[in-house]
């Protein structure tokens, strides 16, 4: 998908003026609350009209003030998942799901109800009313309704921000799975860096209605290091758990990580970069259950601190230390080093 946006919109005291072209299947739009993310997606989806400029999707104009083109929202084929499910309360789950499908031209109907129900695991909800579904079920149905309209692109406008943490990480796999299974490119809007890193490859960073940068999610995370009180968080996708010494052991690079808590076949865990302690030489003994032999693959500035990228085989971690520690440890690119991490420092997501 290629999205070209060069348009302006004045809303009371807020002025959105953006000019960018972004390519990719998983695009993120990141920025603090009130920076204009929802206004931007409203303009792309055709829910609001720009004052001037043009918007192209895959080279086709959906709005062009010069050529007087303004494709109405219902003809843009852009599905939307909102912050809240916003299911039609007078319709059953099945009727909600089929609302967009029935309005899609027959030759465009590539995704069927049966396929979708399998992916989202909502078969047993079909004949129920939407008023007595749980929060997670409602959001799954909302995803399904948008996907089943067979859109050329999906816009997810903060679809996780109204959910609590555990529900959020239950919904994320459904969001990803449905877009991947049906090959639908998406725009994922969020002010959460963690969500952005999980959902997006390319991220458009916004501030005050303007483009602040276009980068990968990882570059965005690193660019924000040291700019706030929150440390950089390592997001690790771990596989093949087994029980060891009352903990869960997961493969990581050419070694393993011991993590407190339940074992899962696959786990997404976060590890604050400040919870990694570096040693120049092998410490003879340490209370930390993980001692990784790593190689420094990159060193970068992180505000007043320094980010150290550690390679443990194929997998990588980022530790953040103060500049004095860099000198004390004589850290340089390619230097071998030991990293100690407590098993309790990891936080499973979901």
């Amino acid at each position: 998908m290629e999205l070209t946006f060069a348009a302006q919109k004045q809303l009371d005291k807020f002025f959105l003026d953006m000019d960018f072209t972004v390519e990719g299947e998983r695009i993120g739009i990141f920025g603090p609350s009130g920076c204009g993310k929802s206004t931007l997606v409203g303009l792309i989806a055709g829910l609001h009209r720009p004052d001037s400029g043009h918007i192209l999707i895959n080279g086709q104009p959906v709005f062009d003030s010069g050529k007087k083109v303004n494709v109405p929202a219902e003809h843009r084929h852009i599905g939307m998942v909102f912050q809240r499910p916003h299911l039609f309360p007078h319709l059953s789950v099945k009727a909600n799901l089929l609302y967009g499908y029935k309005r899609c031209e027959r030759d465009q109907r590539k995704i069927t109800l049966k396929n979708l129900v399998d992916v989202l695991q909502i078969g047993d909800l079909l004949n129920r009313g939407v008023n007595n579904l749980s929060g997670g079920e409602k959001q799954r149905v909302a995803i399904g309704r948008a996907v089943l309209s067979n859109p050329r692109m999906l816009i997810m406008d903060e679809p996780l921000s109204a959910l609590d943490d555990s529900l959020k990480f239950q919904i994320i796999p459904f969001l990803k799975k449905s877009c991947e299974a049906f090959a639908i490119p998406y725009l994922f809007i969020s002010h959460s860096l963690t969500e952005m890193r999980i959902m997006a490859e390319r991220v458009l960073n916004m501030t005050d209605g303007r483009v602040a940068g276009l980068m990968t999610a990882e570059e965005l995370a690193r660019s924000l290091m040291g700019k706030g009180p929150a440390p950089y968080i390592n997001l690790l996708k771990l596989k093949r758990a087994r029980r060891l010494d009352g903990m869960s052991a997961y493969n990581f690079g050419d070694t393993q990580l011991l993590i407190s808590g339940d074992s899962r076949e696959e786990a997404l865990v976060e590890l604050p970069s400040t919870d990694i302690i570096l040693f120049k030489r092998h410490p003879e003994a340490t209370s930390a259950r993980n001692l990784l032999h790593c190689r420094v693959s990159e060193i970068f500035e992180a505000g007043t601190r320094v980010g150290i990228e550690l390679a443990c085989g194929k997998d990588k971690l980022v530790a953040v230390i103060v500049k004095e520690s860099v000198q004390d440890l004589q850290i340089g690119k390619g230097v071998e080093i030991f990293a100690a991490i407590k098993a309790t420092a990891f936080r499973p997501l979901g």
Partner: protein
Amino acid sequence: MDVLVNLPLTLPPVVVGYLLLLLLGQNGPVGKWVLQPLGIKLIFTWKAAVIATAVVGFPLMVRSIRTGMEAIDEKLIQASRTLGAGWLDTIVTVIAPLSVRGIMAGSILMFARGLGEFGATIIVAGNIPGVTQTIPLAIYEYVSSPKGDVIAMSLCLVSITLSVIVLIFHEWLSRRVVRVD
């Protein structure tokens, strides 16, 4: 427009009736230029009573429907449009069904107001027994005549019964509209 729609609500019904008489009467603009050429006679017929009742009750219905529509979450309308429904489709499949309670409440209010309508009706439709005499007009006539108290009281009971039936019907419909699984 808003003022025009709501005007019958604040004007005395007699004034509304008189204005209707001026408008629809033989020398009124609508009466002379539209109704007469078509051979339609409204004044002092049951049709005039219906029009008078409708005009007086109409603002109540409009206000009720409007309140119902304003309560609809705008995101539902946006969702409908991004799912491929045009404006008319959205009105028929989302806005109207979600306004049903407002429409029903408005209709019932309008009907209830119509049951009590007196001033405008008597001006444009008169009080002709068996033709344009409504319950309030009949009650007025029987109360004014000697020995008419019993019939007036009977008509009052009919009025009360009708009102109770209307309210029960409204409540029953409201419960059916809210989908409970």
